[in-house]
């Protein structure tokens, strides 16, 4: 259902959309039943139709069962929802599949800095590619991200991934995603981070293999010269990250 509103671009988007669908169905059912009974009573027992009210204490068991049976059914639905909620949560947040590549994401007022591991797939080496407000990914790879914040709370949110994680200063939070759809999508900051919060937008570019290699080569061209200042830049980055 959600994919009709916003497209799915990560492997676990469908899991999350599924639990949402489950809740829509179960919750919607109860909402409909409750509202229907409610309005039916309003219509049926309006004063003009039913001038004399009955005297029902609701203390007798025969009366209580009208509350209790729906109530047990609610509990059943709850267990169902809890199961799928935790399943989705476990997949997204707790259980990380082995990474093909790792990207370092640093939030600060009011921009996202992305450190791509570069050709050697190793963070902290000279060929890292640091970009601001644009994250470049290769479709179909499993990425781990290391999320940090330099100043206040931020929240790395990619709606099409169905992914959201706050960046907390003084912590490195690891997560994963696997882009499944090439294209360019929004990255938002979902945690109030000061006056620039509303403009803290970034882009995630998901490339096919060839495009990605093209982009990577463009970035790493002439690394020999860049090597030195790249290293210093990375050092500075790590420092501020560990600050």
């Amino acid at each position, binding site marked *: 259902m959600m994919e009709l509103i916003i497209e799915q671009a990560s492997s676990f988007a469908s899991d999350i959309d599924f639990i949402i669908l489950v809740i829509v169905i179960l919750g919607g059912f*109860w909402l409909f039943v409750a509202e229907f*009974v409610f309005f039916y009573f309003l219509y049926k027992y309006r004063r003009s139709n039913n001038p004399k009210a009955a005297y029902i204490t609701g203390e007798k068991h025969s009366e209580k069962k009208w509350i209790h049976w729906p*109530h047990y059914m609610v509990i059943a639905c709850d267990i169902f929802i809890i199961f799928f909620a935790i399943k989705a*949560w476990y997949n997204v947040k707790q259980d990380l599949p082995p990474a093909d590549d790792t990207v370092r994401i640093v939030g600060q007022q009011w921009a996202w800095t992305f450190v791509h591991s570069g050709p050697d797939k190793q963070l902290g080496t000279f060929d890292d590619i640091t970009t601001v407000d644009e994250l470049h990914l290769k479709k179909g790879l499993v990425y781990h991200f290391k999320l940090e914040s330099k100043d206040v709370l931020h929240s790395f*949110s990619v709606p099409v991934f169905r992914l959201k994680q706050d960046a*907390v200063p003084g912590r490195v939070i690891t997560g994963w995603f696997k882009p499944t759809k090439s294209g360019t999508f929004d990255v938002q900051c979902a945690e109030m981070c000061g006056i620039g919060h509303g403009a803290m937008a970034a882009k995630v570019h998901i490339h096919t293999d060839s495009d990605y290699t093209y982009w990577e080569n463009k970035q790493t061209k002439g690394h020999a010269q860049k090597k030195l200042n790249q290293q210093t830049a990375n050092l500075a980055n790590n420092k501020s990250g560990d600050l």
Partner: protein
Amino acid sequence: MTSSASTHSEQSFWQKYIFSTDHKVIALQYFFTGVMMAVVGAFLVYVFRMQLAFPGKEVLGFGVVSSGEYNALVTNHGTIMIFWVAMPMLIATFGNYLIPLMVGCDDMVFPRLNRLSFQIFFLSALVMLASFFVPGGAFGGAWTAYPPLSTDPNYSLTPAGSTFWVLAVALEFVAFLIGGINFITTAMNSRAPGMKMFDIPIIVWMIVIASILFMASVGPLIAGAVMLLFDQLLGVGFYDPSKGGDPILWQHLFWFFGHPEVYVVLLPALGIVAEILTVFSRKKLFGYKTVLYTTIATGVLSFFVWAHHQFVAGIDPRMANVFTVTTILISIPIAELCFVYIATLYKGSIEFTTPMLFALAFMAEFLIGGVTGIFLGSSGSDIYFHDTSFVVAHFHYTFFPISIIAVFAGVYYWYPKMFGRKMSETLGKIHFWGTIISFNLIMIPLFYLGAAGQHRRVYNYEHFSELSKPYLQDLRVFATVSMIVMLVFQVPFFYNFIMSLFRGEKAGKNPWKANTLEWTTVSPPPHGNFAEFPKVYRPPYEYSVPGRKLDYWPQNEKA
């Protein structure tokens, strides 16, 4: 308040209306302060909704909204509506007015403490309003005030604003601690002779339980606020990781209070609705004890769920599973309460007066708020919905019924007791339909926008290509327009409220033929409430008892 100032000498006016220790006057002082703050909150929402609908355009009565101003508007709209509207309206106004009358005594047990609590509350309101005019402007770090943004002026850019914000909130807590002690002690100790546990009207139970919840949950946040203040003023660094602190601690302290707070305001609203449903369906409350025990269960459970506000806020993912379970479990007592209230209508004789309409609207709307809460309480879907407009729509579907609809219901219902005259039904119905329909038209678009990935507290969505699509912008404009319509439809209410003071039809002692004790004295009740203090012979909801020719049976009526 001046409207009721029919006094001879200035001196007696001050004593009678400003420095009074009479619980009824203090209740009205809370009420009018709450109305004043509600108007402020409404103005704030008007401004920032206009900014969302027409980004960068000049807003009538405010001017162009900068992003910093926008944050301040959003932040203080939330803070004011919860701490300076919902709390004083539901707990303080109805608690002060009704508890002594309903338990059949002459005043609160500590009238001067009661007056003090209002004065502190009023001071806190002034501090809150003052924060708009300090250099740097009002605090803009969202009503949750997460550090480091709220502690470090270099980040928030509102050095004075954030301090004022913390001070105002802390003062407000103190006021309600004092008030709460008063409510609880009064209801516990000064009940009319013969009024046993299960003869206490549900609303009194609800307000007392709410006060207990507040008292038990707010302590850590008060300590946390002191720490926040030291961080702001001395740069101590309780919440600063570079100094060994931890920002997450504040989130825990805040939500350990913040979630019970939801029930602190919900329970009195449920109480008001219970009173009104029974009176206008001439029906005994379905399962008084069930309601009571369920409420207590809700209160206890509400302490076990707080971290569902922090699922993606950097807490350990394993904890999220625990809190998902507890959170979903709280739907059980809440569902039970809804079922009980619906069952109360069964075979009733329902009269659609204005208070009844509002009470029923509370039920209909709150059900939506409750169901949409499941999306956010279950960790899996919260990853997506957290901090989107979906959250905004969800908690407005809970808080609007609670702090606006239920309050209107209570005002229309107890107005005759408060001022001795009834409010106009026609104007009331216009007000009702105008408010309810436009409210839904505001919030339903927000559900869709949230599902489309729109985040909260963003002053201008043109920065996000996915969110600046025209049809999404149209929805925002639609919501804003309906919001303005809703504000316009409040005019009949104010007109009705003021005019009825003079022209409303005389109410008499018991216009609604209700059972509870407040209706056994003259309206408005004099200082001291009762000519002779009532004795209680039966539970509060004995309507249409078989074999009586009257369909109601006041609690104080002998056999």
